[in-house]
C-alpha cells in the first residue's frame, strides 16, 4: 500500500506537471489535424475521363501481342484531400507494351506510384492458415503463389518482379483489418490481390479503409455483398468469384427451369453473413420465378448435433419439397447430411454452394452426399474442362507449389484466377503503373474475353462490379460409402439475370 504521507488530495498537487503535459497533448493533437497526419491518407482519385474506345486484349502471362488499349481519357488531377499527402495521379493514356516489346527495368519509369519501383511491385494479402477458416481457405495461398512464381520466372511485368507478402490473420476480423492497414502504410503495398481472409477485408471495407486509401483489391472471393458495393465503399474492390446472392439465384433458377422444381426448402448457415444474405436471395428468386418456399431452416455451424433441427426440417419438407438448397459450411453440411436430413436427391433436387465444393466434404459425407449438386463459378479441373489449356496450367502451376492441396477447392481456384486478373491489370497498366490506371483498366476491359479462361468473359464497370454471374453444377458421386468424385451437370454455365437484386 502507498505510504500515506505522500498522498495529496485531488486535484493532486504534484501532478500539475501531468496537467501541463495533457495540455501539450491537446494542443499538439489539434495541430495534427492541420499537419500531415499519421493516418490513412485521403487518396485523391482523379475522375476517370470519358472512356476511349476500348479494344480487346488478352492479358496474363502468355504475353499479349495486341496493341494496348487506350484507357479512359486523361483524368484531371484530383484535388488534394484534407491532410492528404498525395495528389491525384494524372490520368495518362496507357499504352500496353508486351514483354516482347522490350519493356524493362531501365525503361519502365521507376517509382510511378506507391509500392512500385523500377524492379518490383509490392503486393500483400492476408491469408487464413489457422483457426476455423483454415479448412477451406487454407489452400488459397498456393494459387496466389503459383501465379506470382510463374510471372517472376518470366522476368516479371515490364522488368518488375512481384513481391508478394502473405500474412496469416487466422480469419480474425480485427487482426485482419489491422494487418491490411499495416500493408497500406508500412509495407506500402501497391495493391492487395485476392485477400481470401474475408473477415478482415470486410471490416476494412466497411470502415472506409480501402476507399480512403484508394488501394486496388483485385480478384476477391466475393462471397459477401459488401464486396460489390462499387458505388460506395467498395469502389476499389473487384471480386472475381460469383457472389453468394448470385449463387442462390442460380440455384433456384436451375432447379425451377431445368428440373421442374416448384416447391423449395432451404437449410442455411445463420451464423456467418453469407448464410443470411443467401437466404434472402434464394427466397426472393423463388418468389420471382413463381415457385413456393415451403420452409427455411437456420443452422448454427458451431453445433455438433442437429437431430432436432433435422426432424423439424424433415417434418416440413420430406416429400413436400422438390428441391432442397444447402447454404452451409462444409462441416455443417456434413453433419446435416449424415444426420439424415431430407435432400430430394432422387430428383436432382438438392444442391449446395461453392464452400461445399471440396474433396474433403466428399470423403467426409460419403454416400450421404451422393447425388447432391454443388455449384462453382470456375471451370474445375474435372471432366469436361480438365483438358483445357487454362485449366491444365492451373493444375500444373499449383501442383508445383503444393503436392497435396485440393485442386477442387473453389476458393483455391478463385485465388489463382484472382491472381491472374491482378497480373492482367498490372500488365495492362504498365509501364507507367499507377493505381488509377489499374482502376481504369479493370472498370473497362473484360477479362478472359476469349472464353478460354477459367471463367466466361468477365466485365466490371464503374459503380457496378457484378462481373462473374454464371455458375456450373457438379454432383457428388459416392458408392458403398466411398467418394468417387464429381460428375458434371450437362447444363453448362447458368447465368443470373438479377445479380444486384436482393443485396
Amino acid at each position, binding site marked *: 500500500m502507498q505510504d500515506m504521507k505522500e498522498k495529496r488530495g485531488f486535484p493532486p498537487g504534484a501532478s500539475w506537471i501531468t496537467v501541463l503535459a495533457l495540455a501539450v497533448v491537446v494542443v499538439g493533437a489539434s495541430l495534427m489535424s492541420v499537419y500531415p497526419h499519421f493516418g490513412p491518407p485521403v487518396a485523391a482519385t482523379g475522375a476517370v475521363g470519358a472512356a476511349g474506345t476500348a479494344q480487346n486484349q488478352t492479358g496474363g502471362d502468355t504475353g499479349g501481342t495486341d496493341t494496348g488499349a487506350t484507357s479512359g481519357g486523361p483524368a484531371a488531377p484530383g484535388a488534394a484531400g484534407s491532410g492528404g499527402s498525395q495528389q491525384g495521379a494524372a490520368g495518362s493514356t496507357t499504352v500496353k507494351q508486351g514483354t516482347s516489346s522490350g519493356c524493362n527495368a531501365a525503361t519502365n519509369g521507376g517509382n510511378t506510384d506507391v509500392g512500385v519501383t523500377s524492379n518490383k511491385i509490392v503486393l500483400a494479402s492476408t491469408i487464413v492458415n489457422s483457426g476455423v477458416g483454415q479448412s477451406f481457405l487454407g489452400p488459397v495461398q498456393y494459387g496466389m503463389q503459383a501465379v506470382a512464381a510463374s510471372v517472376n520466372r518470366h522476368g516479371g511485368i515490364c522488368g518488375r518482379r512481384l513481391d508478394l507478402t502473405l500474412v496469416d490473420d487466422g480469419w480474425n476480423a480485427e487482426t485482419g483489418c489491422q494487418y491490411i492497414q499495416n500493408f497500406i502504410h508500412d509495407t506500402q503495398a501497391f495493391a492487395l490481390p485476392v485477400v481470401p481472409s474475408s473477415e478482415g477485408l470486410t471490416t476494412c471495407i466497411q470502415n472506409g479503409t480501402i476507399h480512403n486509401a484508394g488501394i486496388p483489391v483485385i480478384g476477391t472471393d466475393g462471397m459477401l455483398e459488401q464486396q460489390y458495393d462499387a458505388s460506395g465503399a467498395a469502389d476499389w474492390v473487384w471480386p472475381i468469384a460469383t457472389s453468394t446472392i448470385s449463387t442462390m439465384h442460380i440455384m433456384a433458377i436451375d432447379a425451377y427451369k431445368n428440373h421442374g422444381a416448384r416447391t423449395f426448402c432451404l437449410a442455411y448457415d445463420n451464423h456467418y453473413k453469407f448464410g443470411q444474405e443467401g437466404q434472402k436471395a434464394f427466397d426472393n428468386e423463388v418468389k420471382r420465378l413463381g415457385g413456393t418456399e415451403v420452409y427455411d431452416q437456420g443452422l448454427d455451424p458451431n453445433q*455438433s448435433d442437429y437431430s432436432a433441427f433435422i426432424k423439424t426440417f424433415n417434418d416440413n419438407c420430406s416429400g413436400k419439397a422438390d428441391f432442397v438448397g444447402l447454404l452451409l459450411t462444409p462441416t455443417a453440411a456434413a453433419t446435416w447430411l449424415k444426420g439424415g436430413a431430407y435432400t430430394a436427391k432422387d430428383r436432382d433436387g438438392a444442391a449446395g454452394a461453392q464452400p461445399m465444393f471440396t474433396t474433403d466434404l466428399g470423403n467426409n459425407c460419403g454416400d450421404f452426399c451422393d447425388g447432391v449438386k454443388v455449384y462453382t463459378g470456375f471451370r474445375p479441373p474435372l471432366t469436361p474442362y480438365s483438358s483445357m489449356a487454362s485449366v491444365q496450367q492451373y493444375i500444373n502451376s499449383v501442383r508445383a507449389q503444393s503436392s497435396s492441396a485440393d485442386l477442387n477447392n473453389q476458393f483455391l481456384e478463385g485465388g489463382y484466377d484472382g491472381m491472374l486478373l491482378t497480373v492482367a491489370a498490372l500488365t495492362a497498366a504498365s509501364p507507367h503503373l499507377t493505381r488509377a490506371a489499374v482502376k481504369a483498366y479493370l472498370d473497362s476491359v473484360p477479362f478472359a474475353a476469349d472464353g478460354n479462361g477459367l471463367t466466361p468473359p468477365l466485365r466490371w464497370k464503374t459503380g457496378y462490379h457484378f462481373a462473374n454471374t454464371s455458375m456450373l453444377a457438379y454432383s457428388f458421386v459416392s458408392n458403398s460409402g466411398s467418394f468417387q468424385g464429381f460428375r458434371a451437370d450437362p447444363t453448362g454455365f447458368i447465368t443470373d439475370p438479377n445479380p444486384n437484386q436482393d443485396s
Partner: protein
Amino acid sequence: MDIIVTALLALPLVGAYALFALGIVVIFQASRVLNLAHGGMVIVPAYMTYALAQHLPLALSLIIGVGSGSLVGLLVERIFIRTLRGESMTTQTVGTVAAFGVILALIAKVFGTTPLPMPSVFPQGFVHLGSSGIKYGSIGLFVVMLVLAGGMFALFRFTSLGLAMRGAAQNSRAAQLMGINPIRTTQIAWVLGGALAGVAGILLAGVTDLDPYNLSLQALPAFVAVLIGGLESLPGAVLGALIVGGVVGVLPGLPGLGSIQGAPQLMLMIVAFVVMARRGQRLTAGDLRA
C-alpha cells in the same frame, strides 16, 4: 408422440453430457478441483483414435485412444493440479483453464481445423422413426453411458477404492494415517475421469464430427449439468445431463421458440443461474477457513 421422438433424438447429447459430467464429478470427488480442462481430455482421445485407426485395427485404436485420455488426465493432474496444490481456488481454476487452452491450441495446430471423418464404433445406419431417425451410434452412446454410470456409482459406493478416493480428498492426512496413499487415489480418479471423457469424445465424434473447437466445447453444457446435479453426486450428474441434453436437444424442435437463435443456450443459462441462486446461502460458519 412427436415430443417423444424429439426427446429420443437428444439421446447422443444426453449420453455425451452425462459421461462428461461423470468424469468431472469423479475428479472433483477425489481432487476437489473443477477440471475446466475436461474439454481437452475429450478431444485428445478422439484424435488419437482417428489417427491410429488408419494404421491399426479399430479395437486396438480404441483402447489406446481411451488410454490417451487417461494419460492426459494424469499429466494435467501432475503438471497443473499438484503444482498448484495449496494455492487459492482461483489459482487452481486458472491453472485448469490454462491447461485447456494449451491442449486446444496444440490439437488445432497439429491436426488442423478441417473436420475429419471419425471411424464409428457402432454400425452406420438409422432406426427410423417417422420422418427422422436415430443413429445406431447414438443409441450405443447412450447405452454405454448407462453402463459406465452404473459402474462408477458402484465403484464409489460399494468398494473400498471408492471410499478411499472420497476420503483422501476430504482429509488427506487422515487418509495417510489410515494407510491410503492420497496421491495414488487422486491419480486413479484422474485416470477414470480421463477415460470417461475419452469414451465420450470418441463416441460423440462418431455420430457428429471430429472438430477441435466444436467437440471440446461440448464439455461446456456438461458443466451446467454438474452444476444442476451437484458436484458431489454421481446420480445427480446424470440427472443434470438429462435436463441439459433435453433442453439443448429438444428446444430447437419446438415451433416458435425453437427458431430463436441461441434460445437453448439462453435457457440453459437461466436454469443454471436459478439453480445456483437457490443453492446459495448467506455466510455461514462453513465459510470460515480452517
